[in-house]
């Protein structure tokens, strides 16, 4: 009943009535399960909800109305590249030939998908300047793990067991250090310099014979291109370490910078950012990894190969013993990769470069529009995103970045990413992407500026925002203190069901 505003919904369980539903699956023969020994049988059926199709539909349609999405409005969530999700790609991924293909069929049955994957690998290699690409990792973080495990295998293959350190800048995404730990490495954090770049002195002094790798996000999570990247890479090479590039921010450098050409040994792509595929409420994604010559032998198995006769095949089990192995079952998040392939072909070389140019232009324009109302901690040309800060506003009025973010909701905008990267005081990371119009950028800037004014004239209004959303600010402390992580029948007053 969202036409009078979205309404909170009862859970599926509260909507359930015994005996409702059915009509989807034929009834099995009565003796269907007689073969199964009673000891293996479930005594009570799972208490799943019983609903009919109309109720399921209303449930999910009405729930969907409780979400902010790119399809409904501007979503400048920094670091997440919330660009438009082309509808052709959804259509393509649902083509029967793609959707219904089982992952363990013989290669000859899967030539269409294999060719697509092979071509996509080539395109990503070209975009990144890398020698080869694996499409297997399911997300950026798994791509990082893949990369770091390959680096580990590389050092070991050379008999070098000493290198146990991974250097990461303090502005890096949490997945970088977490990945290093998962792969059994020690994380060494490098502070940022005043200009937002890596502190080169701290960096070189941390480098040494125990350094396995450095992980650099470029452009950084501050939206800044690492101008001293040449020096950095030279130092890494000299130290015998390898250079990992976190490519999550690739949207800022398509056609402008190829990490492989610059000397990075390995990088991951966030397909679900740069190449638009949907990350609905948290995923899915795909985190392909590109490698330079030295790491090719260690790529995960199976790779997609093109045989002499032009046919495609997967590597067979055990075909390449130097491989680090597999990171998951099957070949990759193929459904996501189909979308990425469509995205890349729709744009072509000129279009991809335009993506970057427009994304960077939009970010710089927006930064420019906000410079009087907010602090801009790193005030140089940004790439696809930039950090603004409400530091001064907070000092003057007590209104925090969190409040400003919540207040944006009242005006129909999704807030930017806030308090990330952690190194900026009262920071908000704003990423407009290339698919938002100039009208939208201006309207957003006007609103943010108006909120900055409001913080001075009516701070309480900002501090108590949002006012128009279906729920207000949440009691997160209670959620953590008395965790309620699954539905159980509950008494009315305790946690009332919205009607």
């Amino acid at each position: 009943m969202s036409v009078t505003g979205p309404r909170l919904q009862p859970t599926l369980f509260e909507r359930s009535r015994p005996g409702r539903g059915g009509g989807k699956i034929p009834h099995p023969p009565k003796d269907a399960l007689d073969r199964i020994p009673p000891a293996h049988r479930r005594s009570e059926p799972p208490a799943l909800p019983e609903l009919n199709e109309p109720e399921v539909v209303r449930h999910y349609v009405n729930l969907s109305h409780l979400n902010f999405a790119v399809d409904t409005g501007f979503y400048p969530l920094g670091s997440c590249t919330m660009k438009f999700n082309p509808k052709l790609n959804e259509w393509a991924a649902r083509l029967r030939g793609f959707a219904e293909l089982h992952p363990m069929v013989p290669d000859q049955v899967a030539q269409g998908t294999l060719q697509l994957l092979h071509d996509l690998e080539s395109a990503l290699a070209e975009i990144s300047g890398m020698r080869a690409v694996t499409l297997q990792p399911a997300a950026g973080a798994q791509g990082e793990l893949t990369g770091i495990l390959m680096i580990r295998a590389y050092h070991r293959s050379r008999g070098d067991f000493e290198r146990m350190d991974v250097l990461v800048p303090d502005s890096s995404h949490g997945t970088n250090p977490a990945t290093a730990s998962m792969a059994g490495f020690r994380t060494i954090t490098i502070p940022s310099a005043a200009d937002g770049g890596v502190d080169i002195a701290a960096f070189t002094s941390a480098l040494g014979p125990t350094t396995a790798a450095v992980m650099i996000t470029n452009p950084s999570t501050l939206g800044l291109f690492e101008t001293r990247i040449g020096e950095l890479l030279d130092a890494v090479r000299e130290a015998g370490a390898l250079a990992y590039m976190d490519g999550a921010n690739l949207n800022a450098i398509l056609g402008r910078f190829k990490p492989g050409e610059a000397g990075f040994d390995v990088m991951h792509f966030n397909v679900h950012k740069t190449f638009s595929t949907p990350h609905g409420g948290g995923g899915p994604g795909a985190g392909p990894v590109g490698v330079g010559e030295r790491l090719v032998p260690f790529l995960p198995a199976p790779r997609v190969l093109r045989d002499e006769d032009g046919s495609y095949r997967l590597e067979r089990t055990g075909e390449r013993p130097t491989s680090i192995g597999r990171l998951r079952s099957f070949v990759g998040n193929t459904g996501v990769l189909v979308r990425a392939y469509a995205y890349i072909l729709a744009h072509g070389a000129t279009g991809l470069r335009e993506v970057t140019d427009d994304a960077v232009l939009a970010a710089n324009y927006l930064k420019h529009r906000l410079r009087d109302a907010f602090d801009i901690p790193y005030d140089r040309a940004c790439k696809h995103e930039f950090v603004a800060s409400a530091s001064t506003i907070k000092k003057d009025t007590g209104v925090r970045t969190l409040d400003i973010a919540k207040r944006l909701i009242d005006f129909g905008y999704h807030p930017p990413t806030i308090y990330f990267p952690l190194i900026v005081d009262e920071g908000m990371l704003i990423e407009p992407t290339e698919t938002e119009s100039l009208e939208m950028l201006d309207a957003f800037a006007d609103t943010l500026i108006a909120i900055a004014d409001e913080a001075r004239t009516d701070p309480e209004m900002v501090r108590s925002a949002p006012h128009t959303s279906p729920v207000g600010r949440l009691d997160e402390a209670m959620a953590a203190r008395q965790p309620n992580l699954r539905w159980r029948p509950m008494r009315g007053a305790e946690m009332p069901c919205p009607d």
Partner: protein
Amino acid sequence: MPYGPHTAPDRERMLTALGLSSVDELFLDIPEALRASPLRLPDPEPELELATRLRGLAARNRVDLVSFLGAGVYRHYTPAAVDQMLLRGEWYTAYTPYQPEVSQGTLQSIYEYESLIAELVGLEIVSASHYDGAAATAEAALMTCRATRRERVLVSHAVHPHYRETMRTYFGSGLQLDEIPLVAEGPYAGTTDLDALERLLGDPERPVAGVLAAQPNFYGLLESMSAIGALTHAAGALFVAVVEPVSLAVLEPPGVYGADIASGEGQPLGIAPQYGGPYLGILACTEPLVRQIPGRLVGMTTDVRGQRAFVMTMRAREQDIRRDKAASNICTNQALLALAASIYLATIGPHGLRDVAANGAARASELEAALAALGIERLHAAPYLNEFAIRVPDARAVHRRLLDRGILGGLVLADVEPTDPSVADALLVCATEITTSADIARFATALADVLGGRSPVTIEAAVAIDGSGVSTAGRMAGR
């Protein structure tokens, strides 16, 4: 740019505001020597051409085969409502629900996912979500090490080979992984060897953190999960059950037979095979393990207005807060697939899910009988649900010749276990609710033909059974 809004005057206006004459000036921070060589990619392709190309590639895949292939990925019927709900733009391109005030749709759906899976597995805590069954299982194994502060994990050889390979990769960091062999002969052949397990657990020098076994196992057989669990717990280790969710409509759930953790592949819950993903890694555990479980947790709480509401919680386990001390590096997950699974479960209901499982079992019995009539026997004797291995001389060649006849005769086990002589001449075959009697008859006929025998049912008769002229291949969606 096919999706961009900026016109030349728009760009001009922005450049003017910035005092620039060209967008190139915004890239001067890239050292000249390091600027990219030109992109060698084709020209932009108009949607009409691109759609044609994509349709052409999809058509090169052969999805109209009569298929008996399962092996961890199952072909089920997905009601049409599922994908139509899923296709709504409000779910898409919405990242992590950082702002709960405008993400209640996603947050409530995740809470419901947690609740639905909790019912299926009989455990309290469900994380939403992991990359796939293999990655979730590897995370489960790592959880046992963190929780017990031990470094050795045992995994049954009858856990899916891809899962075992994945665990091996994830364990590259120094943890130890040993395999529990299978019973070689007799009524329990193909299931986890309990004696061997006991021996492996008994080494006082190398205490075990966790034991993993799959139900049904990779060969489709039912394991004695309570016995495995009892041995495991006796050794102070945690028990991880690797499960297939549809089977849990009829099989005893992990929570009942004492598993501490359950992992598995959620693909069978309304998700298309898609040549490998995106799928859904299921991971669940008992309440005491809640601080060890990686991945997202959504809980119920209230808002300042006193309304019930949902929010991400216990985030201190996650990488964005804990960085190198996090439970896992997972960030982007498979949330949209968790939503798909929830919609599927809500649409099909508990009785529907039971019918899916029971129909699969019934069709599998029928398949076994049809093959037995040809003299083709099962490789093992233990009970199975809807998948089993058969002994076929020269299995790879037979498989290939079946393919020529439009039939996907399951999995050549030697392809995934090339060094295991016990499966050298074997095919792993499976049936689900979309398998028809006509499909089974076609399989039997073709197999008889390939093996040089006689066909027990003619193809004409077979097609008449179904009537629609559409084989299994046409029975998956509603999508």
